[in-house]
């Protein structure tokens, strides 16, 4: 499944995760930035208002001191108020513009510098408010605020943004993972089923149902496709088997043909050579087949062949093989064989099984007999051809001596061991 193609393609997981993450980050940043902006704007209004209130209260407090031109009293009153409030610098002037009092917040390091800069950037300052006495301007108050609360708000806003961003990123990744499970699970099973179908021809596996409708319908379609493939495959297989059977079997008797027999014989000889066993090849030929064909017609000949085939088959063990070599010739492979006598006994049983008449179409019966030649591996030949020839020769000898008998091939001694039907 891991095919290395040139460009690295992102996984579904990374695509979904990235999508969720960017969506969440965008939402959070938009919300928090707009909220912070609004907050700063609102706070700016309040800070401005607050500064004016402070100026007014300074006004009231220093009014008498300004009336009497009392610089010390004004300074003291100014300090009392300004030190308690968010004021960076405060000044009181009399009506001639002379400074009566001045107060400045002592430097407290970096933070106060930032606060001052912030207040300078955000607030309209310094603000000036006239000091009135009996409706007449007698002086003025100049105030510069410091952005302590603004800075606190911005810092807490920043912290809130960070926390919210981290939180929403976590939630987004969690949701992406959950979504991914819903998507990749079905896709995984689909892929594994497809892979199994492709590489192992396992058409019996099916994709399980999925929770997501599209994936479920995809799985269903895939399953339907697999159904068709399976049916097609089954059909093809049975067709192939039929063809293979037809190629290796005789259509009349249903017995294997010569090619099939030779193949089995080769394998049997190989196995016997390895295990040091014996194998018997029996060559059978119908004695009166030509007469029956001439006298009763081909249909009768066919019926005789079928009957002979089934009778031979009935005498054999399961692992033994009988084949129709052509015409009225049959061959039997006995593998493994313990003794020669076993093969002769089986040949005898087959010859005996021909004693019963064979029913022909048209309510007539006919009697036939078989001549059998026996060849034993390794005694009478080491190759399939030699064995078959030996068995064939033995069969002719049997036929010559007496129809309906059997003859074992001659090995070293030409002495024939002919058995006749009793």
């Amino acid at each position, binding site marked *: 499944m891991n095919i290395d193609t040139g460009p690295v393609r992102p996984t579904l997981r990374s695509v979904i995760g990235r999508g969720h993450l960017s969506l969440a980050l965008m939402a959070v940043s938009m919300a928090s930035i707009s909220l912070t902006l609004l907050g700063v704007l609102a706070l700016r209004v309040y800070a401005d208002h607050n500064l004016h209130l402070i100026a007014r209260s300074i006004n009231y407090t220093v*009014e*008498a001191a300004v*009336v*009497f*031109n*009392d610089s*010390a009293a004004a300074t003291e009153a100014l300090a009392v108020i300004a030190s308690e409030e968010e004021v960076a610098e405060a000044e009181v002037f009399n009506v001639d513009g*002379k400074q009566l009092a001045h107060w400045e917040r002592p430097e407290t390091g970096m933070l106060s510098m930032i606060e001052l800069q912030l207040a300078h950037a955000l607030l309209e300052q310094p603000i000036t408010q006239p000091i009135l006495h*009996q*409706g007449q301007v007698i002086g003025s108050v100049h105030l510069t605020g410091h952005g302590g609360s603004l800075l606190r708000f911005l810092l807490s806003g920043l912290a809130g943004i960070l926390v919210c961003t981290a939180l929403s990123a976590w939630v987004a990744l969690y949701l992406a993972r959950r979504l991914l499970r819903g998507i990749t699970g079905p896709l995984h099973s689909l892929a594994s089923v497809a892979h199994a179908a492709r590489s192992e021809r396992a058409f019996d596996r099916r994709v399980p149902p999925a929770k997501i409708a599209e994936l479920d319908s995809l799985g269903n379609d895939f399953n339907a496709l697999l159904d068709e493939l399976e049916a097609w495959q089954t059909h093809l297989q049975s067709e192939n088997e039929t063809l293979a059977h037809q190629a290796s079997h005789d259509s009349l008797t249903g017995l294997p043909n010569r090619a099939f027999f030779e193949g089995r014989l080769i394998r049997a000889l190989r196995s016997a050579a390895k295990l040091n066993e014996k194998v018997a090849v029996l060559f059978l030929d119908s004695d009166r087949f030509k007469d029956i064909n001439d006298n009763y017609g081909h249909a009768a000949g066919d019926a005789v062949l079928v009957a002979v085939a089934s009778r031979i088959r009935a005498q054999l063990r399961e692992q033994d093989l009988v084949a129709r070599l052509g015409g009225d010739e049959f061959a039997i492979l006995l593998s493994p064989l313990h003794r020669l006598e076993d093969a002769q006994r089986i040949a005898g049983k087959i010859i005996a099984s021909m004693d019963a008449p064979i029913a022909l179409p048209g309510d007539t019966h006919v009697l036939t007999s078989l001549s059998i030649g026996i060849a034993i591996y390794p005694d009478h030949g080491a190759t399939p051809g030699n064995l078959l020839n030996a068995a064939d020769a033995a069969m002719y000898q049997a036929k010559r001596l007496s129809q309906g008998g059997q003859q074992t091939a001659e090995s070293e001694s030409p002495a024939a061991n002919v058995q006749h039907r009793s």
Partner: protein
Amino acid sequence: MLLLALLWIFTPLAFAQPPAGMADQRAKSVTQVVLGILSYARWPVEPAQLRLCIVGPTQYTDDLVKGTTQATGRPVVVQRLLADHPDIANACDAVYIGQLTSDERSRLFASLIGHPVLSISEGGDQCTVGSLFCLRVADEQVSFEVNLDSVARSGVRIHPSVLQLSRRRAPGS
């Protein structure tokens, strides 16, 4: 027991360009302080014009006698009266008292009893007797004391700012 408070007033001229003359500067400072006190005073019945009487020989009233108008638009009418003027209590809303003998002063304050008249003494040493405010004039500063007892008795209300300032300054002075 009299409650005394002292208030130091720094005149704006003290820090200004070289003054035209010391006396001039003092007179102006005195005028400012007197008008300031008057602006923080409330009478039971507000007079349409504020009648300020200067009684006895004074040193720093050259500027004050010119008369002026308060910020509210109320004119301040300044007139010089003799110490034995028969009806000072009714003719004046405020009295600026200069150098008087103790007899004259006793008679003056006796005649003011029961009348809402704001009294300011030019000399600080007489403040225990009955004057509401007593000035202490110096080159650099014009200060004044407040006799809270007299203020309470006179019926003229003085704005708490002035009293608070004086009370605040009392321990330091």
